[in-house]
């Protein structure tokens, strides 16, 4: 018998009497607060920075002003040019010298201050981790209330890789002292930039 069959047989023989079906999971929606306000508050409590509403024209200048010393700015968005084009098929390790990565999130979650990214938004997944700093563009109209609503998004089922990013890479493993920039990005800035168009960011990306 293969290990697979042996394990499945042992599980079948031992699993307890069928427990009742799972009740429907409510959405637990609350409408008392502005989603944008709640998003900003939780993002900042998780160590993220919040850049208020901007039109797309000022974005290159905004990124430069946030990171005046940055030599390599690599953008996966059409709104920010950056200093180096992102090559979708390159070895991810080539991003090791990126100072600032720029991506656009598909949506945000107010409850947790998270932004949703997948391989479509990131183009190279490692961009969000190997860069020293990450700037995320988010359309303020695309913020959902909580994780129940977020997980109803069908893109979770089709993306190869999807991540809810909440603030920068962090650790408190030594005496509980909070450190930003444990292994991934040292800072995360979420800039409110409306999508001036309908459709996916990819359709407008310079590389497609």
């Amino acid at each position, binding site marked *: 018998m*293969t290990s697979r069959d042996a394990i499945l047989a042992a599980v079948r023989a031992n699993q*307890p009497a069928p427990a009742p079906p799972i009740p429907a999971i409510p959405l637990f929606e609350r409408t008392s607060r502005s989603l944008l306000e709640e998003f900003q508050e939780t993002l900042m409590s998780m160590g993220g920075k919040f850049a208020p509403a901007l039109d797309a024209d000022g974005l290159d200048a905004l990124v430069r002003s946030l990171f005046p010393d940055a030599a390599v700015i690599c953008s996966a968005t059409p709104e920010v040019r950056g200093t180096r084009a992102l090559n979708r098929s390159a070895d991810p390790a080539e991003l090791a010298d990126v100072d600032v990565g720029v991506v656009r999130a598909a949506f945000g979650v107010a409850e947790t201050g998270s932004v949703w990214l997948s391989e479509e938004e990131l183009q190279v997944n490692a961009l969000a981790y*190997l860069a020293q700093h990450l700037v995320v563009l988010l359309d303020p109209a695309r913020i959902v209330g909580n994780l129940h609503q977020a997980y109803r998004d069908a893109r979770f089922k089709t993306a*190869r890789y999807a991540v809810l990013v909440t*603030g920068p*890479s962090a650790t408190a493993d*030594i005496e509980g002292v909070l450190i930003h920039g*444990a292994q*991934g990005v040292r800072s995360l800035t979420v800039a409110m930039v409306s999508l001036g168009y309908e459709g996916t960011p990819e359709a407008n990306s310079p590389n497609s």
Partner: protein
Amino acid sequence: MKPIDHAEASSHFIEAKAHLEFHDRRLWDLRVKRDRQAHGIPEWEELRNLASAIKEHTLSHLADYLEEFEARAKNNGAHVHWARDASEHNQIVYDILSAHGAKTLVKSKSMLTEECDMRPFLETRDVKVIETDLGERIQQLDDEPPSHIVVPAVHKLRGDVSEVFARTIGAEPGNNDVHYLAEAMRRNTRPYFLGAEAGMTGANFAIAETGSFVVCTNEGNADLSANVPKLHIACIGIEKIIPKFEHLAVFIRMLSRSALGSPITQYTSHFRAPRPGTELHIVLVDNGRSQRLGMKDFWTSLKCIRCGACMNTCPVYRRSGGLSYGATYSGPIGIIIDPAFDIRKYSNLPYASTLNGSCTSVCPVKINIHDQIYKWRQVMVERNQLPLVKKEAIRIIGRVMSEPRLYRAAISAAGLAIEHLPRFAIYNWLNPWGRQREVPESARQSFRSWYLENRRRQ
């Protein structure tokens, strides 16, 4: 094998006063932060009920869900392997690595690979294994297992970390600055992320409907391990399955709130299919889980999502440290899991508890932890695993308690004894309870004699 002596091991932990004091305070702080988060969510108790129902339903239909997960994962282009036990798991991982010529493995934290003792297995076969979670890396470099499932090096102070880093990764000796130490680790690890041929993660959840798995970290080290090398191996215990994404929401809302008191981990990462041009291997591991599923009183321990809330709240854990349990899993959850792996080795662990029930009330998936601790004590008695001193004491207590006359005589004698006996007769090796504390002063009068004097007359 000799049983682990938790009380003896804790006595060393307790001797280091500064460590003990910090450990107790830091973990209690996590408990307080957990409460703040839980109280901020009106539906918290409803979420706990849902989480428990999802897990109980899934575990009672586990074989079907495992088959569904496997079929979807294969359809996504992942390779799926099955391991009956730790040694089969380790061999599978090694075979995958050697088929790819991989000599360096960067990995995120996984209690399962700790359970399988994977690192030494690979290292003796010339695979360099780099733990990339800061706490786990500290423990690896110091050649110690993690002492806590969420914060692996919580029993160490900054001076200890400084000493380890100076000895192992060339950090400046005597520099105890926490920012410096974290930065030293970051700089030491980065080249491994860029050069390793393989990356490994565990999984917090696996989702049957899509064949996806989910990894939660604060450092982003799982995402680096999985997204830079061309080979990703994920080791997943078979109890991690849940049916659907909508169920995942319930757990993600509670996991980090219960663990660290933050609304979510910085990174909640969902892996469904390999990146183009890379390989994804999933190893589904049993290692005693299918057997535990058949234990009437203990199968619900498989609901555990490894948040560590029961450890943070446990007065015994906070004052004895995770290493004193001598097991992969420590604290209250460890007490109810470990004996299922080795009943003799862990026969003393069920006594490392006051049965106060705090673990049960903070558990996000509503495992009746303290009831199970009590039930393990009964199993130890039935299986004749009780240490001699406890066995004798319980035999005598049993006799005294069953005879009111003997009981009354014993109570009045005990009151007198505590007052008048010399210290060595009370604070000796037969009474480990008295090692770090004083026996309380006994009441001047027993309730019964007070009652006879006062109430009988009315």
